[in-house]
């Protein structure tokens, strides 16, 4: 069976008004993402990559173009086809964000409830979907904490007592508990210690592989792109300057900016 497109961006653009003039944070971005594909969006600060991510996750409305998602029909795993996210009700979007999507924030504090325990954080989505058995919720939480290599003895501890790397792992578990098909990640390893970054990347790579996740990963780190993504978009000043196979873009960059980026990376 031919796999169908999961996420489709069509000439997506967002402008902010600055001194009366529109300034395009991101413009004319198009791609089709299939199940199981990981797309890295790479660029420096101001490139528009974070804006693009928020547009794709429907956290911002498009000023131009549209984002389409293969919404599952309410009955079982039937597909309702590609639906324009702008046409979905807020209720449906929020439901989508809680079930079929994940969003891993750069700072775990933005993606976790800091005032409830690790276990409660992992179980929240399930409770929102109607899970009402405490024992089951707890064993789900334990199982996911093991999966992301967190000490299950910390299940009742508040996330504020976790280290940065552990908080990120908790965030990942919290997002994956509903088996989403698509995960958005905003600089998932930035800001962590290098060795912690490395282990987290390994975990992400394994999970993406094992769960056949599709993902859009925003990063400024080319090594993260190479490790996690099959495809890459390179952004500069709101535009996509190059896109294609990750290894092709990194080993044989065509656009001047891509060549600059690749040659700028320090290798130890």
């Amino acid at each position, binding site marked *: 069976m031919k796999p169908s497109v999961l996420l489709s961006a069509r000439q997506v653009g967002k402008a902010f008004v600055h001194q009366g003039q529109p300034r395009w944070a991101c413009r004319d971005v198009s791609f089709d993402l299939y199940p199981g594909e990981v797309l890295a969006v790479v660029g420096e600060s101001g490139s528009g990559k974070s804006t693009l991510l928020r547009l794709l996750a429907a956290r911002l409305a498009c000023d131009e173009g549209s984002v389409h998602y293969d919404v599952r029909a309410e009955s079982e795993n039937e597909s309702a086809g590609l639906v324009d996210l702008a046409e979905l009700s807020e*209720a449906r979007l929020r439901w989508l964000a809680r079930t079929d999507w994940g969003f891993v924030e750069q700072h775990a504090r933005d993606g976790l409830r800091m005032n*409830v*325990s690790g*276990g*409660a954080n992992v179980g929240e989505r399930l409770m929102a*979907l109607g899970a009402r*058995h405490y*024992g089951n*919720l707890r064993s789900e939480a334990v199982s996911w904490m093991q999966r992301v290599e967190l000490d299950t003895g910390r299940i009742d501890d508040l996330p504020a007592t976790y280290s940065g790397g552990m908080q990120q792992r908790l965030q990942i578990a919290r997002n994956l508990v509903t088996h989403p098909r698509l995960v958005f990640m905003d600089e998932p390893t930035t800001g962590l210690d290098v060795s912690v970054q490395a282990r987290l990347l390994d975990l992400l790579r394994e999970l993406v592989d094992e769960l056949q996740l599709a993902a859009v990963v925003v990063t400024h780190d080319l090594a993260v792109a190479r490790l996690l993504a099959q495809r890459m978009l390179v952004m500069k000043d709101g535009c996509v300057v190059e896109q294609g196979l990750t290894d092709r873009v990194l080993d044989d960059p065509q656009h001047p900016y891509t060549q600059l980026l690749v040659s700028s990376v320090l290798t130890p």
Partner: protein
Amino acid sequence: MMDQHYNFAFLDERTKKRIRRALLKAVAVPGYQVPFGSREMPFAYGWGTGGVQITASIIGLSDVLKVIDQGADDTTNAVNIRRFFARTTGVTTTEKTREATLIQTRHRIPEVPLTAAQILVYQVPMPEPMSRLEPSRRETIKMHALSEYGLMHVRLYEDIAQLGAISRAYDYPVMVNERYLMSPSPIPKFDNPKMHMNPALQLFGAGREKRLYAIPPYTAVRSLDFEDHPFEVQRWDHACALCGATESYLDEMIVDDAGSRLFVCSDSDYCEERRDTGHVGTQQAVTLHDALATPADVITPSQQEAA
């Protein structure tokens, strides 16, 4: 005798009309918080202005009013509010639940079952059940609109994880008509089952927060719980010292420096009625040693019904 300097029941007719309109909306959508134009009352916020405005809007000459505070008719608050209405309406007041048509209450539901001819008005300090979990009003409005109540369950989960059981003993959140999450006001969870399928109309008013809500007669009201941690009411191992009641909510009063305590019905009318019909309690305080030796049992409402 009604004081002629004030309009009937203190509020002007337009205000009463607006509040009644809001009440109709509230009754039409059980458990949903309806904003209303709360007025300045001759006493401060936090002393029942919401409840009083509702009572004032619906009270009529033929009504018989009862006012209780923590179950008692004779505390300062109850006395003042009852006198307020006596003065501004001339309506008959009573301390007997069975004789009342309109009952305003702070933090308790009377023990005597209510009838379809009665209305219960609750005083509510904070109408938003999720206020401690989500401070943003905008966000809680959305959560109610979209029926997103996972957060409240997260709180209950957290209680069980940290304390072994759900710790809420009062103001225990309920689902009304299986649609809206509601705060029943700070009544003890002991009283929660009384709200379910009650023949009386239940109205809730929060003056400072400017919201009111309602539970129409015979509406389903379910206290939140988990399948493996079901909702339980409190139960005491002692009876009321005055009337010997074993099924009512008991106040526990320390009576001496040795820690001896007297267990007495919180609902003063209920206790008095029992005494009038000949029931007698031990008339004695329980020593600290005895109070600690017999732990309070907890039973589920269904067990309570079977008993």
